[in-house]
Structures are given as C-alpha cells and as structure tokens.
C-alpha cells in the first residue's frame, strides 16, 4: 500500500466520530410528503374546500389526473431518496413513470373532452403557473436539504427526479383547491409550470447536490 494511502487511513481514523445513520428512503419520502400535506392544510384554511371538491367530483378523469400527480409525487420522492444513497440502482429513476403516464393520460382525456364541448377558452392561466412554481419553492428547499444529508453520487439524475416530485406535489396540492377546468390552455400552463420546476431543479442539481 502506498505510504500516502497509509497516512490517509491513519488521518481518517484520527478524525473518526460516531455518526447517526440516515433514515431509510421510505421514511424520508414520507417526511417530505408530510411537508406537502402541511402546505395543503395551510391552503385549506384559506380556500373554499367544498366548492373545489364539487368541481373535482364532476368528472372522473379529473380525479384520475389528481391520483396520477399524487402517485408521481410519492414515487418520485421515494426514487430521489433511493438515488441519493450510494449502492442503490439508478433504475429507481424509472419508478415515477407509471404515475406520470396516468397523470398525463387522464389530464389529456379531460382536455379532449372539454375541447369537444367548449373549445378553446382563450384565457391565460398564469396564476396556475405562479401557484405551482410558488408551492414548489419551499418543497424544493426541503427536498434539497434532505438530499444533501444523504450522499447523491448522481446529482443531475437525482435532482431531475426530485424536481419532478416537487412539481407533481405542488400540482396535486393546487388541483385540490383550484381544479383545472381541463381547458387546453389551463393544462398547457400546468404542464409548463411542471416543466419549469423540473428543469430548474435538474439544471441546478449538479451544483446543489454534488458531494
């Protein structure tokens, strides 16, 4: 063994302190999803929940879309924390895909249905965009802090999946209070907001999560 490697091992031994093992990815994901629930609970105080539920109940595919975004958020969070642990497979990145397909599929169905009956509504739904980005910000901060406690060896991939989790969670929270009316412009703004949040986190991930 090279002398310098020998010295390094001695120095690392000198610097050894007991460490607390990091929690399992499942627990971390649940903890992070708890942050989303807290935000949802906060918004429930402000918004008229009954009117929102009535609008959601009017179309089954709207519920499917919400279920899809919820599954995407939960599985993407679980996948991000798995990816942040050395020794876990990168295939975890594929876990959110079924939820994502359900989310996109159900939203698309709703869009087509409304398109056929109402047509283009012509409105610019920038408030959806701002809401999703705004709700994502604290979730992204919490996610990055928790991921940095782990040790992401694939920072860009981890950040991409984490960004999807943040965007999906905020879209789920938003859809409970302001259900998309499934007009094409509304859904386009939802998709744009999700893409922005995911892209921003993915782009900054290498710097934020590099260890």
């Amino acid at each position, binding site marked *: 063994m090279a002398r310098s490697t020998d010295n*390094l091992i001695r120095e690392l031994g000198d610097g050894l302190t007991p460490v607390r093992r990091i929690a399992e990815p499942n627990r971390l994901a649940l903890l992070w999803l708890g942050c989303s629930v807290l935000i949802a609970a906060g918004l429930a105080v402000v918004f008229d929940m009954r009117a929102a539920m009535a609008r959601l109940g009017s179309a089954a595919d709207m519920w499917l879309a919400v279920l899809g975004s919820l599954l995407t958020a939960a599985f993407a969070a679980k996948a991000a924390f798995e990816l942040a642990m050395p020794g876990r497979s990168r295939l975890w990145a594929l876990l959110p895909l079924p939820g994502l397909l359900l989310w996109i599929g159900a939203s698309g169905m709703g869009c087509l249905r409304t398109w056929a009956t109402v047509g283009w509504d012509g409105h610019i739904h920038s408030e959806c965009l701002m809401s999703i980005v705004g709700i994502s910000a604290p979730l992204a901060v919490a996610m990055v802090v928790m991921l940095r406690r782990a040790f992401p060896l694939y920072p860009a991939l981890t950040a991409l999946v984490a960004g999807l989790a943040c965007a999906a969670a905020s879209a789920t929270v938003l859809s409970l209070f302001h259900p998309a009316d499934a007009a094409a412009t509304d859904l386009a703004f939802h998709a744009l907001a999700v893409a922005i949040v995911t892209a921003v986190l993915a782009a900054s991930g290498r710097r934020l999560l590099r260890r």
Partner: protein
Amino acid sequence: MHAGVLSLAPGALRAAGTSSVDTRDQTDRRLGGLMASAQAGDRAAYDALLRDCVPFIRAAARRRGVPADAVDDAVQETLLTVHRARHTYDPARSFQAWLRTIADRRAVDLLRRQGRQRSREVHDDIAYETHPAATGEPVAAGLDGGLRRAVESLPEGQRQAVEELTLNDRSLAEASQVTGRSTGALKVNLHRALKTLRARLTGEEG
C-alpha cells in the same frame, strides 16, 4: 491488515463454486459489521475496514480504465468519500455494493477531470517558454514581501502544501513523499491555504 479476501481473482471464485459465494457473503457481512462498528466510533474496526477496502477500490479503478499512475489518487479520493458518506451505509445491505458505487463514481470523476485538464493544457514547447519554473528558478524566489509573509504565517500543514505544490512546483505524489502527508490531506490543505491567503490579501489591499 486483514486477509484480502476481496482481492481474490474472479476465476478463483468461480472455480471454488458455491463455497466461494459463501466466502464472498461472509466477507461482505464481515465488512458490513466493521462499518457498523465504525459508525459507532470504533477506530480499530474503521482502520481494518479501510485497509480491506483498498484492493477492492484498486480493482474498481483499474476496471474503469484509470491509468496505473493515477490509481492511488482514485483510491484516496474513494477513501475520503467513504469517510464522508459513512452515515449512509445500512448494515442490512451489501457493503460491497455500497463501496462499488462510490469507487466507480470517483474513478469516473477522476477520468473526467484528467480529460478536462488535458484539453486545457498547452503544448509542451509553449509551456517551457512561458512557465516561470523553466528557468530553473523556483517561483518562491519571485514572491513579493506581502505574499511571502502571508504564506509564512499559514499553519504548518497549509504552508507546506502551498510551498511544495505551488512554489516548488512539485506533483502531488512528490509533495506527498517530501512531507509525508497523504495526497488527500495535501489537497485539503492547499484549498484551505488558498482560501486563507485570498481573504488575507484582499483584506490587506482593501
């Protein structure tokens, strides 16, 4: 040092059949146990673990195509990462899988860094014409008083790192030989020294 079961050739493992799988599992469990003890602060277990990791990391670096003269760097960077990431190891899981991912990533990082450095390096002829050390005069001789004093006032480890790596133009390996410090420690000390010098000099000037 503990017996290097990890360094067994793959052929030997195959020839031994099922018993080799048992041996590998036993090794994995033993290493996992050592890491669990290290997580609790057991210095002797940690020392034994890191020494047992070295042949495994060497093999991973070579498999990834790290040149022979850079394998020690890959080993040391992996050991530093193992130290910083030790809280993420779960004793219920394979230790070797955990270590393999870290060793592979550090080998890839090292190769990328070498690739980037090569692309930035100028042609040797130009380097000889422009590099101050080409005259045979150490860079240290050209230091002005303020910088010299700032370097001299650094803590011992940081001063050595600056003098050997920057002023005397030694490679990491040479500086390590001269000072008896690891290349990892030299890198950390140089980084800290540059940060201190930057703060002091800009403070003085500003």
